[in-house]
């Protein structure tokens, strides 16, 4: 595994995707859970817990897209044009989700409508992101540097499975986030939900993991060939440990640990994805090096990534620190 500029930027893109999935994941999760929360205080409180940070969270999605265009322009064009329908659906869903944050406060008469937009947008965005991921794992047919498949190649039982799994996973993130950020009835409700969503997420992860090696021989070899299996077997082992801690901490009524464990599950899921995909960025034929922009482009971005990303993480941390602790609701002060 040569560690050169394309490889470094592959890790950067992976980091942006991870940052996006865990951060926007919990606020999309709050959107998915919204219909299960009673109208009034609990919903307002849940919305308030993500309102100051959702915009920063979604910026990682722009970073993922912009970064892919900059570092792997060939892959950016191939993946997005191949997955046209789910990508457009995600973008439109994010429009509804995003405007609902402000609009629901501006227009109390139509608040139920904007709540539906918030939830619908969150579910469709999560589903579309999962389908995109599933379709990428299945592989994308390319010829002469462009997509060469049909318009519904992305729609398979596997991609739908990944889509539904991601909805469950985001909902788990959202419920554990609210366990951490809320009090009273909302916290109790989310605590109960987190149990069920934890089970659903683990089952979904197991199903996706079981199905993936059968998609391509290369995936099978990657996971089960000797001696790699010694390395790859650590992933399911860690998933088992994290799962145990997740349920243990939920049972003990911890506030912070369940959210951290849900984040760890997503981190491990992404590690598993990386193991399956490497060295391809568009399986089955376009590798990281085939798709990479020339070194001159990557070198130009290097200082930006090495200097600015840590600064971004610092002030993102500051922003979360300002809004730390339990989120207030009416009559709190």
């Amino acid at each position, binding site marked *: 595994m040569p560690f050169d500029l394309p490889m470094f930027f592959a890790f950067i893109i992976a980091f942006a995707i991870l940052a996006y999935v865990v951060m926007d994941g919990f606020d999309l999760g709050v959107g998915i859970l919204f219909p299960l929360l009673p109208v009034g205080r609990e919903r307002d409180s849940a919305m308030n817990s993500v309102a100051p940070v959702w*915009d920063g969270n979604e910026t990682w999605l722009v970073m993922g897209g912009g970064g892919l265009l900059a570092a792997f322009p060939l892959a950016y064009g191939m993946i997005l044009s191949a997955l046209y329908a789910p990508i457009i659906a995600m973008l439109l869903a994010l429009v509804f989700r995003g405007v609902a944050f402000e609009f629901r406060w501006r227009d109390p008469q139509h608040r139920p409508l904007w709540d539906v937009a918030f939830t619908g947008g969150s579910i469709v965005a999560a589903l579309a992101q999962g389908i995109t991921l599933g379709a990428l794992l299945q592989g994308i047919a390319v010829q002469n540097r462009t997509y060469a498949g049909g318009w519904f190649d992305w729609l398979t039982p596997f991609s739908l499975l990944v889509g539904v799994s991601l909805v469950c996973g985001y909902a788990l993130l959202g419920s554990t986030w609210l366990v951490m950020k809320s009090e009273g009835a909302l916290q109790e409700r989310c605590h109960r939900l987190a149990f069920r969503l934890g089970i659903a997420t683990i089952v979904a992860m197991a199903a996706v993991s079981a199905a993936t090696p059968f998609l391509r021989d290369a995936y099978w070899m990657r996971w089960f060939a000797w001696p790699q299996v010694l390395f790859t077997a650590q992933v399911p082992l860690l998933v088992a440990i994290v799962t145990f801690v997740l349920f243990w901490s939920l049972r003990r009524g911890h506030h912070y640990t369940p959210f951290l464990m849900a984040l760890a599950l997503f981190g491990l899921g992404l590690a598993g994805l990386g193991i399956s995909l490497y060295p391809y960025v568009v399986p089955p034929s376009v590798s990281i090096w085939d798709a990479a*922009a*020339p070194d001159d482009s990557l070198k130009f971005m290097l200082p930006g990534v090495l200097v600015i990303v840590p600064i971004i993480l610092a002030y993102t941390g500051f922003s979360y620190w300002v809004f730390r*602790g339990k989120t207030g609701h009416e009559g709190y002060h």
Partner: protein
Amino acid sequence: MFEGLDAIFLARLQFAFTVSFHFIFPSFSIGLASYLAVLEGLWLWTGRQVYLDLFKYWLKIFALAFGMGVVSGIVMSYQFGTNWSVFSDKAGPVIGPLMAYEVLTAFFLEAGFLGVMLFGMNRVGKGLHFAATLAVAIGTFISAFWILSANSWMQTPAGYAINAGGQFVPADWWAIIFNPSFPYRLVHTVFGAYLTTALVVGAVGAWHLLRERGNEGARVMFSMAMGMITVVAPLQIFAGDQHGLNTLEHQPVKVMAMEGHFQSHPDGAPLVLFGWPDEAAGKNLFALEIPKASSLILKHSWDAPLKGLDTVDRKDWPPVPVVFWAFRIMVGMGMLMLLLAAFSLLARVRKRLYDWPLLHRFALVMGPAGFVAVIAGWVTTEVGRQPYTVYGLLRTVDSASALDAPAVGASLMAFVIVYFFAFGAGTYYILKLMSHPPHRGEEGPRRDQPVRAAGITPAPAVAESLTTGKEA
């Protein structure tokens, strides 16, 4: 229903629609972010309540506009790949890093501090809150810097080489970023954003002055907005002229379309004030012209020769009527802004700024003029770049994804429906906020929303968590 239409035309229409809608929001929020920083700075400096009231008044509007800018912007960052995958592959190594820097240096800065700016007034100190407001304002400017650099590179490509795979690859980053049209476009666009905001603020002030002449907030915002227009409108016209000369040097065909010059004029070209460009016939119908004036403006000489579209192969023509008319709309708006600037200056000198209803009515109808000018200017420069995506090098027809017309048609319709619904509602909410007069003790962004802050400092929250024994 889309079989008869060309997939690439639909893709262009979709891009034009989504980028025009998107551009409305930043062209307003770039100026508004700076205005908010000025208001908060004045409040901290003078301690006058009215500045804080106005800050909070406009902050609510900013929150709505910014949110719509964010979600419509995400669409843009993915649309290069979905609909223009060949362009992305070929130009990505050059414009991709510019956009990546926009995300890294601007978007995160804006998003990271927006939460503090909107909701953090009671959570952080005044100084830190002002720093957050400044960070957002600077972020909007940095964003304009990078995206206009990328856009200008597509207009006047420089500092590149072409590799074996047909990709544009960077040879000299300095030349790429500061490509020939970039400084002009940056100044012209940022001035445009400031004017757009000043016109909106002025119109809101005028509306409330017409109803309640003594409203202090309305007076202050109207005076500030008119002052801004008086300074920036003449500067903008000068910057626009310079930008035009730059375009004549690097993209002469675009200027031919803007001027409606189908024929070459070896001894002084006329300025076509109005007319109907007939592309097929290659002449202007019903033209009203000032002889030799175009040569005077573009070459600073009555008799300077100017080439026309007759020297250019027809397959390299941009759509002439669109460019011609969009340019005239922009210039017309600019002239009206100059008139408003002069009128308000006269009123200021005669100390009648707050009690001259005709001025207030004029300022009110000019409220949307900035948006019209900005979109018209954008159409002029982007349609004027046709038939290329990278000017002179990569044709639009060779840039698109291999999508079928029904797929693009369906997504275009979805965008139209969703944007009109979501952004139509947003515009209505903004107008509703604007219809309330600014008043003393203005509430922050969310009057009807539960208070989330635990107090002026986090101390009460900590104290409460200690007494209740819960995790803080």
